[in-house]
């Protein structure tokens, strides 16, 4: 029983991380039809920004205060938002209406940022400073669950609620939702969709940056490979959930995180294989994913 609880909570924690990366990706795809290969780069920059700030704030034992940790998360969020906005303005906008070229340019940006991070900070993992309580253990139903899993679950839930509220109850959210449904019609109604493009890139970048910092907490370190590793997982989540659907991504993240943890435990090391098989099966049965648009 305690094993199942531990696996389930760890799986949901991982799902939270996947969802944070995937939500930005799916928003950008939904509105702009661009599979953003630079999302891993956004995540990497967020993670390293938080790490840089944390290295300044931490004490001799490698711990930071709660306020310092909050500042690190905000720094990651801001770094992601800035790089996301710049990407949209400088690289995506000049290629307006050429979606495939936009995808390729994000591939290039991903290469460049990955190489830059590698060049500046080297290939070795860097220990990620965090408050002492994140290293602690919470006892639930006889299982010793690492506290960082609850941090991820909490942040992911917060983001999910905030995103849904933003999309449902604000004017910009309405434009984004309408744009996902039918972009041409939104433009025809006299709304400048391009401002919504910048918005989703800033938002997606901010979420990617935040997940970079949280991945640092989850894995205990940041390394240049983190971006591409989580990007592939996020792609799998986004596609299983249905491109463009936030709730689909949340459900798919849950399925992928749980499947990965349980498969890894019961059939040693088979977790990664299980999720790609799940992806293949879902796509062959429902090519548009669980909650993908039907058009």
């Amino acid at each position, binding site marked *: 029983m305690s094993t199942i609880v531990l696996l389930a909570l760890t799986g949901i924690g991982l799902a939270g991380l996947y969802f944070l990366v995937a939500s930005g990706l799916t928003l950008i*795809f939904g509105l702009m*039809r*661009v*599979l953003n*290969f630079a999302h891993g780069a956004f995540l990497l920059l967020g993670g390293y920004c938080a790490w840089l700030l944390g290295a300044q704030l931490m004490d001799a034992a490698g711990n930071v205060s709660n306020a310092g940790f909050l500042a690190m998360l905000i720094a990651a969020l801001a770094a992601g938002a800035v790089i996301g906005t710049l990407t949209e303005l400088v*690289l995506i906008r*000049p*290629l307006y*209406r*050429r*979606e*495939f*070229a*936009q*995808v*390729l*340019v994000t*591939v*290039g*940006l*991903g*290469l*460049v940022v*990955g*190489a*830059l991070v*590698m*060049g*500046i900070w080297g290939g070795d993992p860097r220990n990620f400073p965090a408050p002492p309580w994140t290293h602690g253990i919470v006892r639930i139903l006889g299982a010793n669950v690492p506290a960082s899993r609850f941090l991820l679950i909490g942040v992911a839930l917060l983001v999910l609620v905030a995103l849904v509220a933003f999309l449902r109850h604000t004017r910009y959210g309405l434009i984004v939702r309408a744009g996902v449904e039918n972009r041409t019609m939104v433009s025809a109604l006299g709304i400048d969709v391009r401002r919504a493009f910048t918005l989703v890139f800033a938002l997606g970048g901010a979420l990617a940056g935040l997940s970079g910092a949280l991945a640092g907490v989850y894995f205990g370190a940041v390394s240049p490979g983190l971006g*591409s590793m989580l990007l*592939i997982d996020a*792609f*799998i989540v986004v*596609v299983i959930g249905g*491109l463009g659907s936030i709730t689909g991504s949340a459900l798919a993240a849950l399925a992928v995180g749980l499947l990965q943890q349980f498969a890894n435990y019961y059939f040693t*090391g088979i977790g*990664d*294989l299980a999720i*790609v*098989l799940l*992806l*293949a099966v879902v*796509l*062959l049965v429902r*090519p*548009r994913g669980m909650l993908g648009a039907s058009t």
Partner: protein
Amino acid sequence: MTRAPGTQPRRFAGRVTLAVIVLLLVAVPWLDLPTAGLLPDRLNAPGSLQLLGLCLVFGALAMTYDLLFGFTGLLSFGHALFFAAGAYTFAIAATVFHLSGPAALALTLGVALLLPLVIGAISLRTTGIAFAMVTLAFAQAGAVIVGQDPGHATGGELGLGLAYDHLPQFLVGVANTRYLYWICLALVVVVAGIIWWISGSVTGRVWQAIRDNERRVQVLGLRPYVFKLVAFVAASFLAALCGIAWLLLVGGANPGITTAEFTLSLLVMVVLGGAGTRWGALAGGVLYTFLDQRLAALAGSPAIQSLPTALRVPLSQPLFVLGIVFMLVILFRPGGIASLFGMHGSQPARRRWLAWLGRGAARR
């Protein structure tokens, strides 16, 4: 296709140029020339020949990806799988099963034909982004399996060194690098020959028609699925051949060739060179590999080391330079290297490719 008057002599001149280039490349191991720092050593030294061989292998591999992506419009993120399948099957056959050279080759060719047939038959039931993702999933599964090292067959993270006990002796040793170089050259000639022949055939025309407008091909009474499957199997089979040549040249397989990043680098090569132009992909693959290898060496040179940090750090990362060049090409020269030279016969193909680039893969 009707040819304008005057193209016959031009074609002849083109063939003569091609023959001269191939003969020059064949003669490279005998040419003891200085390379002015472009290559690691004198032109016919083993280090230089290995680098040239590597450029040729990746040039050929880029052409196979172009067949899939530039010609047929199939954006696969799993092409690395078939290259890796070629390399790993041969390495396992020779090292773990102790098969002789021809037996290992036969086994590898069998796998190289069957694997894409099965994976293609499944993946091609989807289109567009879904196809890209299914192929990515299969390739990731391959990468995971290689990384897991089942039965100590693949060597996991460390890779698998090729055992030469049962292979011909001319493949062994630094002094014999020229034979490996010739194998790579032969690979390029064979792959290019097959790709030229097949893309000029009726099947090749249908592939281009599928890329331009799949529904129309369907309306004309052809089954795009079958043609796409043939393209997928052909490109993957040729990629596996490239994998064998690469394995022999490098002397071992490593998990780096199974990753999604590796497939992305193929995409970069093809777009850099000019998708849908054949020569462009070859040029892109050669140039990418050359820069990747030589920029890394250049990074250690005193000229770069003496630069201020802000310039030294990015310039010592080959992928940084290549990524910047790639983005500039996308933004300002979407036709790639091929468009700089106005490659003959490629104008209509290039225009269609540019139109396709503009239309976007997502809505297809």
